[in-house]
């Protein structure tokens, strides 16, 4: 860095050139159909050599730029390979007869029209929306009430916070099985027939479990919002003779409007993507005697699980991918609408 020594420059150039040669050799070998096991390491060492060479290149003028590129490259590369490329491929595959490994022809929108003729899939969409809406209201309501409880100055509120948050630590798969036990073996003494057997009560069970898991987390966010309300405003209100109800509706709720936005958004998107609890608790089963003239057996199957089953269990990858693209579009629209409504509300307040 300090001296433009010829030696450094030489090493740097040699490394870069050797790296490039190795990289190209690896790619050429692969295209020639070589199965040589050294082409992977060759490629990786080649790329690394180019990077080290560029790093050692003695230039004061461009060194900062070279560092920027080297710093940005690893994460961006991982991001492009795992998110961007699969997303674009996925949109493309949804219009072909893709089998998960290869595709033979382009089928246009056939997958999309096919899924809208499938009552089981439409039922999944319906159930997802029912679940999301009920869940959004319940989680926020319960979480907000718990937050009020925890900030009302009761003794041992630290313990209550930890206790209410605990379910959020554990993954949906494990939780699902624990609750399956509770519903099938414990609550059965009260309810006579397990809630997980009938579609309606099974949906209710999923909602109960999800509220149980998620409300503690949302509660923490509401607590943060509530404790950030300036004390003097609350004092001023109590001096002016505002009762508890007025303080709540006229001061606390408007003051935490942005927190409500965040929480609504979080519950909305996470409920849409719900998969683990659905899989572990009911597996999506449940009979529906008559929906659009058909008998369905996927009563409690929500979108994410329907997509998974279509592709992985029924081995229909292109249809599953088309459903996933639709899922993406729905989620994007809902998020945009939600953000827009919340922004408007906040401006009004």
């Amino acid at each position, binding site marked *: 860095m300090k001296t433009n020594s010829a030696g450094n420059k030489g090493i740097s150039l040699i490394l870069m050139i050797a790296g490039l040669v190795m990289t190209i050799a690896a790619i050429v070998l692969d295209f020639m159909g070589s199965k040589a096991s050294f082409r992977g390491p060759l490629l990786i060492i080649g790329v690394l050599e180019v990077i080290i060479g560029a790093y050692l290149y003695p230039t004061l003028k461009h060194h900062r730029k070279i560092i920027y590129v080297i710093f940005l490259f690893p994460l961006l590369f991982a991001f492009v390979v795992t998110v961007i490329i699969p997303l674009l491929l*996925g949109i493309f595959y949804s219009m072909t007869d893709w089998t998960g490994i290869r595709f033979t022809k382009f089928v246009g929108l056939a997958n999309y029209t096919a899924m809208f003729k499938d009552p089981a899939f439409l039922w999944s969409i319906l159930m997802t929306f029912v679940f999301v809406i009920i869940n959004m209201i319940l989680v926020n309501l319960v979480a907000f009430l718990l937050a009020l409880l925890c900030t009302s100055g009761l003794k041992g509120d630290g313990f209550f916070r930890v206790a209410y948050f605990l379910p959020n630590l554990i993954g949906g798969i494990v939780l699902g099985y624990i609750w399956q036990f509770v519903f099938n073996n414990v609550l059965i003494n009260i309810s006579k027939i397990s809630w997980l057997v009938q579609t309606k009560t099974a949906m209710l069970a999923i909602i109960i479990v999800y509220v149980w898991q998620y409300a503690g987390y949302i509660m923490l966010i509401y607590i943060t919002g509530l404790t950030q309300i300036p004390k003097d405003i609350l004092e001023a209100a109590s001096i002016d003779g505002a009762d508890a109800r007025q303080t709540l509706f006229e001061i606390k709720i408007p003051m935490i409007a942005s927190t409500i936005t965040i929480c609504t958004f979080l519950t909305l998107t996470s409920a849409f993507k719900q998969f683990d609890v659905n899989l572990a608790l009911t597996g999506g089963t449940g009979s529906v005697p008559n929906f659009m003239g058909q008998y369905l057996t996927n009563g409690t199957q929500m979108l994410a699980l329907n997509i998974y089953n279509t592709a992985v269990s029924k081995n229909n990858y292109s249809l599953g991918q088309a459903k996933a693209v639709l899922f993406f579009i729905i989620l994007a629209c809902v998020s945009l609408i939600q953000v827009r409504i919340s922004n408007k509300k906040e401006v009004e307040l």
Partner: protein
Amino acid sequence: MVGKENRTRSYILTAVGVVVALYVLFPFFMVVLNSFKAQASIVESPVALKGASLGQLSKNLNAVINNSNFQFWYAFGTSAVITVISLVLLAVLGSMAAWVISRNNRTKWATAIYMTFIASMIIPFQVVMLPLISTFRDVGKFIGIGMLQSIPGIVFAYCGFGGAMTVFILTGFIKGVPYDLEEAAAIDGCSPEGTFFRIILPLLTPVITTVTILNGMWIWNDYLLPSLMLGQNGRVKTLPVAVQAFVGSYVKQWDLILTAALLAIIPMVVIFLIGQKQIMKGMVEGAVKG
């Protein structure tokens, strides 16, 4: 009078709090209690203390830990290795990328990269998961190192999926770090990379903690990605995948299933109880910023 009213109110609130806590903790209580029992006494009455004994617990634990479908220690170790490596890489690579983005936030390319990261947070996993598997299979064939059913592959995937949120939170923080610090270091002859690792990175500790907690909770508990990439009964498996495989093969064997659940819960609860303040704070900060 007011004092008395307040006291009654506080009693009622505490009572409500306790009832809710009992309800929330009830399933955990069921898991712990029934891990001490044999199948027969669980079926007889899951809530009774009768039939619970330490001997039965160690019997259950032995049966679960040595089970060939569960392989607890192996799954636990795999989960730990995957989580730790992913978290370290995400913290370091994420800080590097966020620093570059925030120091170039007036240029078009940095803004474009940043916006792409933010927009990508809306993408549900379901829409990329199927092509992801085929892409990884192809990449694995190409470089000759298996990307599916391998720890490097899944760590790479977590870096890709966690990248957006990590960069987003870190960039917001780095924008607040005064640029003067870096200029002073540069005048003293410190190289850009030296400035980053010696001056910026240590300043990021609080926000890296937040990011690590958020990513850690997600990666440790994640089921779908490992189940697709590693396979249900693959060579490498994480704890959630092992639980699923185990339960699938022992339907209704509640003594074993609940003991397995207990084993899966304990590590997380222990870590939480050690760092509960940090974890709860981190979860809130991540949500408020994200």
